């Protein structure tokens, strides 16, 4: 599968990654190469093979319904660039 520049820009936009024109050009080739490499898997017939969902023989770990965490607002906002009254403060986003 060939990835064009528009697709590269769209993916970058969705991932909130800013890319230059040169990077976009370069990524076109790189992403196409990666996809082509992965597409080799299409050669394997997987009819009637259930999707593999795990590689380790483990079960999902569960927790009991108990409050064991929280009450640490100072820690939560410690690295925030801007805060007020324990709120995160971010550039205005409103619908």
């Amino acid at each position: 599968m060939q990835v064009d520049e528009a697709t590269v820009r769209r993916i970058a936009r969705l991932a909130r990654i800013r890319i230059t024109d040169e990077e976009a050009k370069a990524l076109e080739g790189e992403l196409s190469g990666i996809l082509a490499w992965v597409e080799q898997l299409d050669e394997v017939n997987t009819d009637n093979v259930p999707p593999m969902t795990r590689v380790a023989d483990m079960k999902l770990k569960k927790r009991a319904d108990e409050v064991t965490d929280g009450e640490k607002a100072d820690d939560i906002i410690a690295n925030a660039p801007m805060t007020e009254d324990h709120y995160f403060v971010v550039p205005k986003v409103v619908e």
Partner: protein
Amino acid sequence: MQDTVKEKAKGKASNLIAGATGDWEVIVGMEVHAQVASKAKLFSGASTAFGGEPNDHVSLVDAAMPGMLPVINEECIAQAVRTGLGLKAKINLDSVFDRKNYFYPDLPQGYQISQYKSPIVGEGEVEIDVDGESKTVGIERLHLEQDAGKSIHDQHPDYSYVDLNRSGVALMEIVSRPDLRSSKEAQAYVTKLRTILRYLGTCDGDMEKGNLRADVNVSVRRPGEPLGTRCEIKNVNSIRFIGQSVEAEARRQIGILEDGGKIDQETRLFDAAKGETRSMRSKEEAHDYRYFPDPDLLPLELQQSWVDGLAKDLPELPDEKRARFMKVYGLSAYDASVLVAERESADFFEAVAKGTDGKLAANWVINELFGRLNKEGKEIATSPIAAAQLGGLVRLVQDGTISGKIAKDLFEILWTEGGDPAEIVEKRGMRQVTDTGAIEAAVDAIIAANPDKVEQVKAKPSMLGWFVGQVMKQSGGKANPQAVNDILKAKLGI
């Protein structure tokens, strides 16, 4: 049968909306977000309690700090399964958590953990009643997901404030089929769903706190034609607004179509103040969520025996309870529905009806008690009259100790002063007079004092009511009305 099918295809005439160029049918489907009743969040040990100081109910997992891993809350799984069982739905023993990717400041992970291709609960159904007709609404699925945090936009002109207390709280998204055909049906559906959730104890249904909210999908079509393009009205948070938003959106779409326009599929908001829906500035590429299985979480596997255990402990649900009330207590469908709408009301009624006539008990609970609670803005849980007291009152009416009129006085005393009904009746001399001698004396006195009325009543027997009233008045409402009637008729010769 043929007629029913045809009826269905054409749409029920009473539900159609008349446009300028003919009738339209409105099609509604809903996605209801119900907050799971649990102490801790879906994937962390932080509290789900409402309110709290900003970012106080937040763990490092909820704030999406690097390296933090989600661990699922077992009770949230159980609550989702209980809800599925209550919706008579298929429980999927294998389900998967996926990441739904989008950027928003109140979603620190950059994705919501949700379930996409393999939800925990599959197809089910909900029975609704509208205008005395019942209808089955299909449930497509129920899945577990995380709630987001909360953004506050009105604190500062240039900045938004973010509180993550809700971030990571477990939600059940319950998706209906597009089976609803009017605003009334949409309201009945959410009302019923809320009742079921509250019976199950899996969601408190508090819409004011946002613990139950609906995304309402609305489209219109000419009866019998294929489905039209739908618009989704986001986050409608009251039953009343659900009705209003369906009406407003259907009219908007009909207006556009009748003017020769076409509907754009989009997300809209309901503006309650203006009573209209408006377009949300569509998030760019909002619908490219790039779902994929969350690599931090293994598949969720349930044991059938565990599900069976939950099923065994399920409480009696509103439909079953209603049927039982009609059968065991002889109640009308209407009275039974009123009583089962809230589990507390149903329990209260059953306590009152213990050892009394069911219908009489229902009358007192619905007409007198609920009426009074409503008037004074009280809940059944804070009723000044306990079930045992009201049961005592009903027994006194039933065995003829007090008349219906005196019972209302007794109700008033119980409401304002409290006390034991039988004791009050004894102490205050409220017993009904069934002693015919006493009643006869009263009747004789009235007849002797009103010879003109006696003449009139012989020509016009409906005047009898006046005599009954006089005798009752003289007895302070304590005379047995039936006895008064009989004796009057005998003495007046009518």
